[in-house]
């Protein structure tokens, strides 16, 4: 494993080679794929199942991830409540959303499943509590 693994360089109009570690299961196949200038898969190898191909298609066009973090709570038994994005969000928003959650402060009590940030930036992204904090 090295840092060239997810190198995405390559000008539009030319074919490019990508190496992607599949996240669909713990096996973590190292998949090599060549794409045409429009990002369509020309060749793919290293995946052992069809989920690997699906993952590569998703990862090339719109990579998504789950963001787990925490936000501050006032008047609670704990000063923080854990939160996450139950639905994976486009990878490009990870850092901005992380920054946004750092300035959120909630009032206890907080329940599991409670929406903490709704429709962030109008992008349909919800941040939801994954723990509870009683009021004290």
């Amino acid at each position, binding site marked *: 494993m090295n840092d060239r693994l*997810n190198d995405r360089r390559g000008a539009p109009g030319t074919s490019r080679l990508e190496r992607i570690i599949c*996240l669909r299961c713990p*096996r973590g196949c190292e998949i090599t794929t060549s794409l045409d200038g429009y990002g369509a898969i020309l060749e793919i190898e290293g995946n052992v199942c069809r989920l690997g191909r699906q993952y590569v298609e998703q990862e090339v066009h719109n990579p998504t991830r789950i963001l*787990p973090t925490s936000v501050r709570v006032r008047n609670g038994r704990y000063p923080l409540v854990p939160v996450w994005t139950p639905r994976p969000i486009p990878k490009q928003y990870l850092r901005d959303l992380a920054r946004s959650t750092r300035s959120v402060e909630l009032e206890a009590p907080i329940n599991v499943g409670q929406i903490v940030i709704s429709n962030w930036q109008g992008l349909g992204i919800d941040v939801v509590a994954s723990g509870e904090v009683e009021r004290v």
Partner: protein
Amino acid sequence: MQADTRYDVIVIGGGPAGLAAALEAHADGQTRVLLVERNDTLGGILPQCIHNGFGAVVFNQDLPGSEYAWRYRTMVEQSGIDVLLDTMVLDVTAELDVYAMNDRDGYMRLRPRAIVLAMGCRERTRAQIRLPGSRCAGVFGAGTVQRLVNIEGYMPGRRFLILGSGDIGMIMARRLTIEGAEVIGVLELLPFLTGLRRNYVQCLQDWGIPLYLSTTVNRVIGGRRLEAVETIRVGDDLQPIPGTEGLVECDTLLLSVGLIPENELSRKAGVTLDPRTGGPVVDSAMSTTVAGIFAAGNVTSIYDLVDYVSKAGAVAGRSAARYARERPDGRAETVTVAAGKNVASVIPQRIRFDTPVSEENLLMLRPSALMEHSVQVELRAGSRVLASFRGNYSRPAEMMIHRLKPQQLRALKSAPRREITAEIQ
């Protein structure tokens, strides 16, 4: 001192193994169960594991550890199981006496009919890896920082370096970055990643945190507080290569260098420990070598997925309830499994043949060798292969889990001298 004999089963430890054990022991509706936890809340390490990656096996869902814990905690609260929080178990004896204390009930002597040990594990410390250099502040276990950042809301530094590419180290690298701290990189002594690959992608690659393989800490530098870390490259023999030193300025060093089962109580109770796992020797029913004492989860061996800790806890809970009910005389028939070629350790170390058909009879192997091709696991008596199964690869970071089928159990039962060896080819 008069013993309190109210309970059939006492479970020691309210983490994932203990929660599952208590629920299963209580499931028959007749067994009186007490769950004892030294923390002020149930869940063990899970409430501070706010990242997802839990529950795929048990709930068929990808959940954060905090939510996984909440689900179990809610089930226990609704079940009517007696729970003692803030309570420290001081001693357990082979006669099944449990000595415990808290600030409400004082000193207690309890005498159940069966005990489940579910004390989990602890982080390996700086002293245990003999890290040289200054004894300054700023060197923490990764799990300790996880608690500080995720539960207590306290950020213990600004510029971090992490030693160890296990899952906790990588998860904390991302966690600190999300909270706005700077993570310079993750060092790994071995020439390969020791945690799961998905964590390499999601925690390091996605956040641009570099991984330095075959690299370790040569010296800790600082006065009152950590100021820098001298790094050094190591060779294939894992020995430092002179002349490859580097200097990294940082104020905090996180150690993610392994976990150790916590077995002070197991030793007091006189159960036999396995030097390979660091935990009690258990059989398929999660029974230890002392009759009536069961054990499950990270107290027996370090697991990589909590779902299997819950499963092991459930087996221990069912077995303890059964033992409390039936008080069997005499020991069950077992075959001993030894770790052979390319295997670091095995759970359970003894296979028994009287477990109910509903039990899954999971055999879990910790591989010692990295092999990125399909492998064959063989359970052998000498040169004879009694049972075998295939795996897609062998990685020390991932337990190999196999459900022993009835015909495989029958084959193992025939082992001469009641001994078999597990090997990965």
